[in-house]
């Protein structure tokens, strides 16, 4: 039985690799990440909703990663220019977002009991 499985394996991989395999895999990632996000974020207290928004905003500044390739791959002058603007915009969000979230969270303190 072990050998049949082994023999069948490359075939199975070949059969499952259609042009839709990869997009569906990405869809799985998207849906599951969305669920995880939803579950976590329902537990964030209303107290922290403003820092939450600036935090998720900083995190979605990850589009920086896509911008970096566009700015540095020399696809075309047009792409490099768009990439440069995108890198700048995304970096503003990443750096500004994390810094301001931290500034806000620093202000939240419990009552000192004396």
């Amino acid at each position, binding site marked *: 039985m072990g050998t049949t499985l082994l023999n069948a394996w490359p075939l199975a991989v070949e059969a499952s690799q259609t042009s839709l395999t990869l*997009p569906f895999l*990405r869809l799985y990632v*998207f*849906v599951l*990440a*969305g669920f*995880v*996000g939803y579950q*976590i*974020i329902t537990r964030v207290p*209303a*107290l*922290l*909703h*403003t*820092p*939450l*928004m*600036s*935090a*998720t*905003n900083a*995190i*979605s*500044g*990850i*589009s*920086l990663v*896509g*911008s*970096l*390739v*566009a*700015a540095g791959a*020399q*696809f*075309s002058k047009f*792409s490099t220019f*768009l*990439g440069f*603007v*995108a*890198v*700048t*915009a*995304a*970096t*503003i*969000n*990443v*750096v*500004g*977002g*994390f*810094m301001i*979230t931290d500034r*806000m969270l620093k*202000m939240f*303190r*419990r009552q000192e009991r004396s």
Partner: protein
Amino acid sequence: MPSASQLALHLLGAVTAAPKPVKAQHEFREFFIEVAYLAASVLFILGLRGLTAPDKARRGMQLAAIGMFVAVLGTLIDFRIVDYTWILLGLALGSAIGAAISIWMPMTAIPQRTAISHAFGALAATLVGISHYDYVTRVLGEELSRVDMAALGFEVMFGSLTITGSLMAFGKLQELLPGAPVTYAGQNESNIGLFAVAVLMFLFLVFSSSLTGSHTVIFYLMVVVGLAVGVLIVIPIGGADMPVVISLLNSYAGLASSATGFVLGNNVLIIAGALDGASGFLLSILMSKAMNRSFTNVLFGAFGTPAESAGAASTAGLVVRPISSEDAAAQLAYAREVIIVPGYGMAVAQAQHQVRELAELIERRGGEVKFAIHPVAGRMPGHMNVLLAEANVPYDKLLDMDEINDQFSRADVALVIGANDVVNPAARNDPSSPIYGMPILNADQAKSVIVLKRSMNPGFAGIENALFYDHKCSLLFGDAKSSLTKLVAEVKALQ
């Protein structure tokens, strides 16, 4: 500038063992990139989990920031990057601007900053999408698959409407644009029509060959239509609805990032975008619920035009009872339990520090002070909490609507500062009121109510508030900040 890129390539070459065949070298780099992205994704989720408790939140966000750093470092060894000049310039410029904004921006400007950061995020996603389209169809001259084109279409459409929508929201919050809703005849019909045009363009792009000239024209036209839709959907939305709009734009910006991940085949982008999208979506649901309204109701501006007739008749002939600051101060000073209800008026007057001072004085005299925070008080989710935290009010005194609503009946004084619709009893007992059904703070159940108010103008929704005419309610007219300064002085004088 070849020197910079040569240097960078040289450094990278040294890291990744130059003599290997090119393909193996690429795989080697790809392995590191994927590991970096996986680590970043985990750190982002852990970071958000930190936000579930105020004392763990800062550490959590530091983890997320490390994740971001790792992801960016990983990307920089991508073999497709051949020149680092523009990357470094963009990183430096963006860091300088981002740091400057976050260091010098006053906390009262948080809603505006949030709105404009959604515009930046969406701009980055849109430009990456356009760059990808241009590279594949024009530079490489290759056909885009339907799936890729669909993802690209989503990215660019959500992105472009979020850019202008967020800029409009920013303009309204910064008061560069009139905050009141702008409405005109046939507005909803023309908006829906334009949106339908965008959808048709999207379908054309997906189902026609991407190598034709008309495909390119339609692609860029769709960007323009998206930009127009963004402007038109935010124009009719008034300031009081901003918490929903900001949350919705937050969600769209996340979805645009996620779509970028689909286009580039990048999982960390998909995950981070999905987290952002889910967060914005959840917040918009919470905000809509707190206003007892549906998404469509907010977006299609049923509230936009003030309901002139509502409540106007019922308050005719009734009189309000103005109170002097001396009398108000005496009431507060001898109260055992005080609940403060802050609203947008407090933010506008920037009176949060005076509020904290007054609360401390009352507590020093032996009274107890709590703050009742309505979910949609202010201009964005959690707005009041951040302002009061900035003024050094401990967060265990900031209570949600559900936590505090039963406590009003025990309170000697409910002090309403620049809030109106969130304490309007019409939401509870007047089915003809436009805000009927909206959950409100039970300020009217307190033994007495003092309202700090600029004038007798109705609140943002343009609805009369029966609370102000209640026999146990008195009004202290004036700017919130100067009224509070007077109250502080009077309470001090009593000691």
